[in-house]
């Protein structure tokens, strides 16, 4: 029986095992090649040199990439991947259900907007600042404030277990959005904060690197940040902190009986997750130029959650895959739709119904999530340990002989 189960586990991780069986030099070479590939993804010349057919018009390659500029989509994928990595620490590692993760993104984005925009009320009305600060200086502040809000939110709630936390975090994200929408004294409601600064730097011809038309530099920036964050998270997961998280997630009482300060480590997970969420928000604000409350709707929190669960909670690869899929697939479907003449809206009994893949993405992901949860509950790229825990829990619910 045991060899049988081991065989089954092996089959599930076939690709991973084969990769791990390669000599170390080959693995490093493959990894470097993959990272280089990621960096050249938005470069048009890369596709031209591949000899793939290039369609007329402004699009790249509908079937391979997307209708819109590849760099735009990749940048969006990037900051969602970062969000998914942050939520993965909270949900995947420590097992805490955070339904309002986008709230930390909002804290990061608004911090950057308030400190870097010349139209910020901190400058125009309150005279707190004499002039707008550069973007780069505000990023650490945004990260710190997001982390602080994570600690403030976690302090009273992490002593509670289970569902309470989900409800409180859900409330947190909504409070931020609604306050931002309705008050006027600092965040400007729906009118928002314009002229948010971009990251620094100019090309040799004097034009800014981080401009408005070409999004590739933003993508390269977010990709670099993602790589750094992955190193950070991997080291954390393999440390004493990481082991404490696993113990808390698997059995909180038992963890406490082993001498793990559960509250402290849950708070750490929350703070680190929040900081990564805030970092994502500050990167996004550096590109978006304009920040208002409409950006922070609840659907975003749900989408990040879907990304983590779909990819496989507790696995870095899973978070990346999930974050990529939730943004990329709808964009890709839209470009495929264009090729086959899928309409953006249909008329049924005189009513126009929006059927573009972007607006249908919640339907698509709702259905996809159900399918994945039935056939692959551990996620598309699961963590070995999480998969075993899930099996254990299933055994408890419905024992099979």
């Amino acid at each position: 029986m045991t060899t049988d189960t081991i065989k089954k586990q092996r089959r599930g991780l076939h690709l991973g095992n084969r990769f791990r069986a390669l000599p170390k030099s080959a693995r490093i070479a493959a990894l470097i090649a993959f990272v280089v590939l990621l960096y050249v993804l938005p470069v048009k010349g890369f596709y031209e040199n591949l000899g793939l057919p290039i369609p007329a018009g402004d699009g790249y390659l509908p079937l391979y990439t997307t209708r819109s500029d590849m760099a735009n989509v990749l940048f969006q994928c990037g900051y969602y991947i970062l969000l998914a990595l942050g939520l993965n620490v909270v949900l995947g590692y420590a097992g805490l259900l955070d339904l309002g993760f986008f709230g930390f993104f909002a804290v990061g984005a608004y911090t950057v907007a308030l400190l870097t925009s010349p139209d910020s009320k901190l400058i125009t009305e309150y005279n707190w600042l004499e002039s707008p600060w550069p973007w780069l200086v505000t990023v650490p502040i945004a990260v710190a404030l997001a982390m602080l809000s994570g600690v403030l939110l976690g302090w009273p709630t992490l002593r509670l277990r289970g569902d309470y936390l989900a409800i409180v975090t859900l409330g947190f994200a909504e409070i931020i959005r609604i306050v931002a929408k309705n008050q006027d004294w600092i965040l400007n409601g729906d009118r928002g904060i314009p002229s948010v600064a971009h990251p620094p730097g100019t090309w040799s011809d004097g034009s800014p690197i981080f401009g408005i038309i070409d999004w590739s530099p933003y993508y390269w920036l977010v990709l670099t940040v993602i790589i750094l964050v992955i190193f950070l998270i991997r080291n954390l997961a393999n440390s004493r902190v990481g082991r404490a998280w696993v113990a808390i997630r698997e059995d909180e009482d038992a963890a406490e009986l082993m001498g793990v300060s559960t509250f402290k480590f849950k708070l750490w997970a929350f703070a680190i997750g929040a900081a990564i969420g805030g970092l994502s928000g500050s990167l996004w604000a550096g590109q978006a130029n304009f920040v208002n409350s409409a950006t922070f709707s609840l659907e975003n929190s749900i989408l990040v959650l879907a990304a983590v669960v779909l990819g496989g909670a507790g696995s870095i690869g899973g978070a990346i895959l999930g974050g990529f899929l939730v943004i990329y697939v709808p964009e890709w479907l839209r470009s495929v739709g264009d090729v086959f003449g899928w309409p953006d809206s249909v008329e049924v009994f005189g009513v126009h119904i929006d059927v573009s893949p972007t607006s249908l993405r919640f339907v698509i992901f709702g259905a996809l999530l159900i399918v994945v949860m039935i056939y692959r509950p551990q996620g598309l790229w699961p963590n070995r340990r999480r998969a075993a825990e899930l099996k254990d829990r299933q055994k408890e619910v419905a024992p099979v002989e």
Partner: protein
Amino acid sequence: MLLEIEDITLHYGRIQALHGISLHVNEGEIVALIGANGAGKSTIMRAISGLRAVSRGAIRFNGEDISKVRADLRVARGICQAPEGRGVFPGMTVQENLEMGAYIRRDSAAIAQDMERVFGLFPRLLERRKQAGGTLSGGEQQMLAVGRALMARPKLLLLDEPSMGLAPMIIQQIFTIITEINQQGTTVLLVEQNAQQALSRAHRAYVLETGNIVKEGTGAELLHDPAVKAAYLGVA
């Protein structure tokens, strides 16, 4: 006296689970708490290990009142519990579970030595070293829970229902090992429904009924007490 509990009460919400319990454990003893379901045995364990706060009374360990000390800090003082229902970490391997037991320690050489000792006590765990905790059988999980608690090098080992759900042969085995652990110098407080085994192994024992201690004595005394015999040993 290693552990001294004085007049503790404990509430779950508005329900009072313990009504002024007093008991003590001397260094080097095996002390058993026996009683029916819902008598409050596990609640006493939770009060000692700190998973539940007492409403009143004192819990003195080595003479110091620890009733306000956090659970994770009580482990550092030398109290370690193998939780009821085993509570092994299902996704961690046997070895990782044992390493987790030594979480508060940093003396890696001595930890490795203790792991050898646990494998010596439970050879089955050595065979299953790389297997996930959740895939073990009930008896193996119980062995793992006891072994894991030993890894913290406790002065006082708390065992909550070590025989629950196990086959008679394995119960026998577990209790033999508990005696062995005790002879190697660890004081043991255990909660049991299997009164026969518990009383014949324990130096002293307490009988618990609905949150009150109704009897105490040496294991042998209680084993031959007519009331205990009728209520817990199934002999008239």
